[in-house]
């Protein structure tokens, strides 16, 4: 009985996570410019990954694997926004312009004293 | 799928990989790319070894206390060693590329050959006097 619940819960989480991963990657593929794609990738990294990891944790029950999964999710939680930020920052420093941003915003970017 | 394919598809893809890596290594005119090609080539060979270690229905060769069918651990060991060798080669190759760039000002094979030729001519001219 418990196993069944475990299966259902973990399955749901897993599939939901997988769906978000897919959507996020679709965004990565579809969105028009680099800055926009960052957001798409963000979906994968956050909700998709975390949900899947939680799903796995549920499946694993109380064990060493769960602990490791928990650690993984923690680290992903810390590193993925950092990486995204670093990348965005690098792009900005190099002067990559975001598309579809109103002029004045671009000006904001330009006036940086780099 | 016919048996011949199911039994060997893995090898064939690995072989394709190997050929691609070798191709890049030989034809690329850029020294860095050559090294990367070499890496791909080596990786393909590693995968080849690991493929031949795979056992149908087997599992990672770590004893768990239950009787199990394990994939062959020996190629894994060999490839561990080979990967290390590969990394070492890559590091050394890249270091060489850096030095080449510093002394020649180019990391293109064509540029290098041209420079070497110039060296030769200069040496000949110096000694000719």
């Amino acid at each position, binding site marked *: 009985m418990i196993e069944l619940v475990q299966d259902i819960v973990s399955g749901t989480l897993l599939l939901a996570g997988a769906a978000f991963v897919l959507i996020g990657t*679709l965004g990565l593929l579809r969105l*028009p410019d680099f*800055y926009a794609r*960052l957001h798409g990738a963000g979906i994968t990294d956050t909700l998709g990954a975390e949900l899947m990891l939680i799903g796995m944790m549920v499946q694993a029950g109380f064990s060493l694997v769960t602990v490791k999964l928990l650690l993984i999710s923690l680290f992903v939680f810390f590193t993925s926004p950092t990486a995204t*930020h670093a990348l965005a920052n690098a792009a900005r420093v190099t002067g990559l312009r*975001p598309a579809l941003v*109103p002029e004045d915003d671009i000006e904001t970017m330009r006036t940086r004293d780099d | 799928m016919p048996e011949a394919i199911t039994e060997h598809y893995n090898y064939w893809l690995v072989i394709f990989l190997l050929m691609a890596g070798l191709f890049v290594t030989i034809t690329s005119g850029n020294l860095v790319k050559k090294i990367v090609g070499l890496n791909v080539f080596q990786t393909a060979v590693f995968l080849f070894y690991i493929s031949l270690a795979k056992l149908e229905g087997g599992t990672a060769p770590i004893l768990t206390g239950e009787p199990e069918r394990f994939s062959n651990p020996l190629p894994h060991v060999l490839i561990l060693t080979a990967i290390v060798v590969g990394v070492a080669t890559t590091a050394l190759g890249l270091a060489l590329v850096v030095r080449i760039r510093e002394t020649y000002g180019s990391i293109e094979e064509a540029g290098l050959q041209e420079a070497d030729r110039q060296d030769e001519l200069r040496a000949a001219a110096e000694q000719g006097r």
Partner: protein
Amino acid sequence: MKHIVGLGVSLLAFWLVMSGIYTGLIISLGVLSVLLVLYIAHRMDIHDHETFPIHLTRGIFGYWRWLAREVFKANIDVARIVLSRRMRLSPRIVRVRSSQHTDLGHVILANSITLTPGTVSVEIEGDEIIVHALTEELAEGVLNGEMDRRVLAIEAS
């Protein structure tokens, strides 16, 4: 000192939960390893409050709960945009005030912004965070200052 002990304890815990093998040898090796890492951390000079924000533990879980909800909502929004046939984007760059007093606070805010899909912090400039947002609504979500307040709150605790 407080920080280094805190770091040590958490490292030891990390080892113990990871290890799963509790023989004398392994545990003693673990202790040695933790000591080594602490020594290196000491040399690296990274065992200040930023390394192991032990002082934040009280408020952080509450914040995470809130953040998780925000992240979830934003995710749905962005997912909808991605899935829509014509992606209606109005990307923009906005400057978000970041009223935190510490670097750590700024970082928590910036990372939280990045974590919520639809907004990515591009740069921290003084007391402002430059954010790229996918749509106007999403930009509003960070501009309203709610996140800033909450981060301030845990920072203060």
